[in-house]
């Protein structure tokens, strides 16, 4: 019931809006419709992309290119990924969470999200049209600089495992652990698939070194996630 708190509140607000003024209600509904349409158009693509990423891109690659040691190059790649995106920011969250689980640094996560929110190519084009190319050409580079600085600062203040451990929603935490696993569902660990093994590690106290297909260091990563969430 608690999960639907926000939804119930929203429905109540809609009812109140209707009682207050049906026109307000109508415009609220049509706005919501637009947002839903936008989400439906982009979310499936992002989920598919995230799933493929989970299954195919090894931890090693993400950590090397986007992790803490990847330096300026990693930051630029993250910036680029955010800049060529489409859709609202929150669509990026599952993707970024998966990348974080695979070893992306916190700073790069912030860069990606911020670029997705405020420095993407489609936005630049629209902005030029409405506010003038002078405006857009000044705001965008300034924003990019700010984003890179924010990334560097966040790197000093937090680490990736801090994030995995602080996600309050148990489902999200489970997703984060699943992102650490190879997601081949080979059943070699003796569990019914990677999701099952992730659950067993988090809640059932299963041994963290059962995964034969996992990369080096997986056992330690799983152990550290489990230890701190207890």
């Amino acid at each position, binding site marked *: 019931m608690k999960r639907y708190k*926000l939804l119930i509140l929203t429905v109540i607000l809609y009812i109140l809006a209707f009682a207050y003024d049906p026109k307000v209600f109508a415009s609220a509904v049509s706005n919501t419709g637009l947002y839903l349409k936008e989400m439906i158009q982009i979310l499936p693509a992002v989920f598919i992309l995230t799933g493929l990423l989970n299954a195919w891109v090894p931890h090693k690659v993400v950590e090397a290119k986007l992790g803490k040691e990847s330096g300026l190059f990693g930051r630029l790649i993250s910036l680029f990924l955010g800049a060529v995106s489409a859709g609202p*920011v*929150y669509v990026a*969250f*599952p993707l*970024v*969470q998966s990348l*974080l689980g695979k070893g992306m640094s*916190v700073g790069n*996560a*912030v860069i990606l*999200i*911020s670029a997705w*929110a*405020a420095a993407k190519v489609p*936005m630049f084009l629209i*902005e030029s049209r409405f*506010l003038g190319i*002078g*405006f857009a050409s*000044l*705001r965008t580079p*300034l*924003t990019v600089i*700010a*984003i890179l*600085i*924010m990334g560097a*600062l*966040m790197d000093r*203040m*937090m680490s990736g495992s*801090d*994030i995995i*451990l*602080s*996600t*309050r*929603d148990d489902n*999200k935490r489970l997703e984060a652990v699943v992102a650490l696993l190879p997601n081949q569902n080979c059943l070699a660990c003796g569990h019914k698939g990677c999701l099952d093994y992730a659950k067993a590690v988090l809640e059932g106290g299963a041994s963290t070194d059962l995964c034969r297909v996992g990369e080096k260091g997986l056992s330690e990563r799983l152990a550290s996630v489990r230890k701190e969430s207890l």
Partner: protein
Amino acid sequence: MAALITTLTMVGFATIPIETSHFGKRFTILRNLMSFAAAMIIALMMGAIL
């Protein structure tokens, strides 16, 4: 100059609950505060330049 506050697309007020559930309270608060500060600074700079 007030128009430059459009940079506040970086601070997702309505998206804070979902950002928190994905990344945790600390990350969300830090990122949004920093984005806000950045937006202010950018707006001031643009006001000075334009």
